[in-house]
């Protein structure tokens, strides 16, 4: 065999591999049916019911297949999935949160990612969709920018303290209405060898301390700022992070954290509902979105609810509510028509009722009758409370390090761990804050 034969063979193979590979990448088989790709973060009850809804959608529209992708959680991998979906062109419908309130002077420097995408035309305008008038105008406004409705807000969550009614009865405890009473209750439980509070930070980080610091900010600080709108007061410089109210909040937060389960930083957030249902603590700091998971884990469990009482004035202690999962149609998505069909299907009375009853959110659709486990647990607080939009500012994704949304909560944990004092942390937040709000 001559030298040329293997050499020529190698050359041919190289060329085939190179150009053949490129050709294979460029080849697209003709589509025999349509697809609509929907992405959202992992909330087990929502994911379960959405899979069922997707199957029903496919049954109604056999030529449209739903590609459903999830990632856990909003602070981590799902944020990556959102970012890559926005930059690519393969996703039609994306789950986000409501965009309002926007900063007073929205810009790349002070908007959250989702706000940035909304204000730069990456979500389609939905004003003319048939379902719009069936949804509450005040809820729709939380997803409206310059008159353009940019998403379907599926409902409202409530966050606060969920408690084990049997345990409370066993130790003759009653629902606390003030901060002082709440701490006394926690001490009482601890004396009985019961873990008072449960919260898990593993895989989600100190952002889940928001179940403590957000209600405290709402109850202790918000009533004392102009217009009772803490978000606006901070965003316009009418109040600062060095406010004595905020110092008091961090001190109280540190006290409350002492009653969490041991090593709460390492407890996975996904296991919170199951651990609570398993009786590992008397109270769970959480949002109503997890109630369905608690109910699934222990259907016989009797659960009650009260707002975390951060103030010693009971009238200020009301739950926090906020816009839940919000569907947006991506402007660069491949199949707008199918996306509109999916949203229309989702918002139809029967399908939407299934979703609300299973997930346990407060509905945003006008009318209808709902029977969720969450509705029974929340009782008079179902859908009632102070909207988080008037409490905590949407922190920017980049800029001064400690004012970034992903870094801000880390200092709250550091206060608990004794690394910094509340005063030091307040100064660290405030140091470059004027740069954020200018």
């Amino acid at each position, binding site marked *: 065999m001559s*030298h040329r034969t293997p*050499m*020529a063979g*190698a*050359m041919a193979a*190289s*060329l085939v*591999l*190179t150009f053949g590979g490129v050709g294979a990448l460029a080849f697209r088989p003709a589509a025999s049916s349509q697809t609509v790709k929907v992405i959202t973060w992992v909330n087990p009850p929502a994911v379960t019911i959405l899979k069922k809804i997707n199957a029903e959608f496919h049954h109604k529209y056999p030529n449209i297949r739903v590609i459903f992708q999830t990632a856990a959680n909003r602070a*981590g*991998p799902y*944020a*990556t999935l959102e*970012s*890559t979906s*926005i*930059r690519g062109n393969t996703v039609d419908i994306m789950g986000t949160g409501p965009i309002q309130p926007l900063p007073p002077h929205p810009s*790349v420097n002070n908007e959250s*990612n989702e706000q*940035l*995408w909304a204000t*730069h*035309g*990456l979500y389609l305008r939905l004003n003319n969709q048939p379902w719009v008038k069936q949804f509450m105008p005040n809820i729709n406004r939380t997803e409206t920018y310059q008159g353009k409705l940019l998403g379907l807000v599926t409902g409202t969550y409530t966050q606060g303290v969920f408690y084990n009614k049997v345990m409370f009865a066993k130790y003759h405890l009653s629902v606390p209405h003030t901060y002082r009473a709440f701490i006394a209750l926690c001490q009482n439980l601890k004396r009985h060898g019961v873990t008072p509070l449960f919260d*898990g*930070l*593993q*895989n989600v*980080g*100190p952002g889940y301390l928001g179940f403590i610091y957000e209600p405290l900010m709402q109850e202790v600080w918000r009533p004392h700022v102009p217009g009772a709108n803490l978000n606006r007061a901070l965003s316009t410089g009418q109040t600062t992070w060095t406010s004595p109210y905020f110092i008091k909040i961090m001190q109280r937060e540190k006290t409350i954290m002492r009653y969490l*389960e*041991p*090593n*709460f*930083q*390492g*407890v*996975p957030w996904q*296991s919170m509902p199951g*651990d609570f249902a398993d009786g*590992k603590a008397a109270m769970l700091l959480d949002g109503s979105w997890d109630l369905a998971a608690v109910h699934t884990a222990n259907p016989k469990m009797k659960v009650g609810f009260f707002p975390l009482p951060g103030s010693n004035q009971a009238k200020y202690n009301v739950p926090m509510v906020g816009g839940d999962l919000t569907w947006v149609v991506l*402007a*660069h998505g491949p199949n707008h028509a199918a996306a509109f069909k999916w949203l229309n299907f989702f918002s139809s009375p029967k399908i939407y009722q299934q979703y609300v009853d299973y997930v346990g959110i407060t509905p945003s659709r006008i009318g209808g009758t709902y029977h969720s486990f969450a509705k029974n647990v929340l009782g008079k607080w179902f859908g009632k409370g102070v909207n988080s939009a008037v409490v905590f500012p949407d922190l*920017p*994704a*980049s*800029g*001064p*390090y*400690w004012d*970034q*949304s*992903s*870094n801000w909560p*880390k200092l709250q944990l550091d206060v608990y*761990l004794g*690394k910094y004092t509340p005063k030091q942390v307040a100064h660290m937040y405030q140091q*470059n804050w004027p*740069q954020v709000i200018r």
Partner: protein
Amino acid sequence: MVGRAPEEPASGAPAPPSPRRGGARTGVFQGRQRAAMYFSMLPGAAIYLVLGIVPSAATAIISLTNYTGVPGIPANFVGIQNYVQAFTIEWPGVAHSIIDTLMFASAVTVVQNVLALLVAEMLRRRVPGVAFFRALIFLPAVLGVTVIGLLWALIFNPSGGPAANFLRLFHVSTAFFGSNTWALPLVIFVQIWSSLGFTVLVYLSGMNAVPVELFEVAQLDGGSAWNIFRFVTFPMIAPSVTVDVLLAAVGSLNVYDLIYVLTDGLYHTNTLGMFMFNSAFQGSGNLGFGATLSMMLFTITLAVALPLQRYLRKREARIL
């Protein structure tokens, strides 16, 4: 031997075909063969250029812009603003990341190599069951990062995981991956566990290449096991040491995937690679700043790897 003229056979018969015939400068291939050789290299070179050189150059350029990659948001040239940002308003994060990176990389490089040497020395011996242990040590190397992350997250779950239950016997508890004290050592441990097999493999291949006679002579001279390892094995596997140390150092300086699945960069595990990933893709989606961190990481990697490589190469030349 290069350059020395081949010796003529004593019989005066024609010399056998020499690979060096035609002159040392021209090599094996000449003329059209040489052209064909370079032509055959083209696809590989093109792939390296497109997937290696161009992205690297693009990263350097992007670090001078405010590029987000988001359609509709223009990218502007901002000069060294991202670098200024890294050393001013982002400095608390960058400083911690550099410290975390250096601690992680130095611990992984040293412990992984020392452990791998010990394990390789044990597995070198031809004793019953050695093949099983070799396979066992190498097993983690074939597991995906996500599997490894899930596995260790379950083991170190403070709420009922096996490690927590074991520690409870001694009335000790910790948050493991949620602890500011233990998260970094545990991530280092998992990184070593997952990479140990490959490192051992390289050392084993080096040890197997050492002539058996050297060990026999050393034994005949009455050398103890430690002295044989110290004066025979270790010097003779110098090339393996170079490969393993460099791979561990460079790999651990750039790591982000394992940390992403174990701690997401929280609790003092925010290495520069992790910080870069979060800045570019997760948190801010700020590719310009992410590229800046990437350039900083590249500089640190070069500053560590080049002197290390020079030292290890000199050591090889001195020993062998």
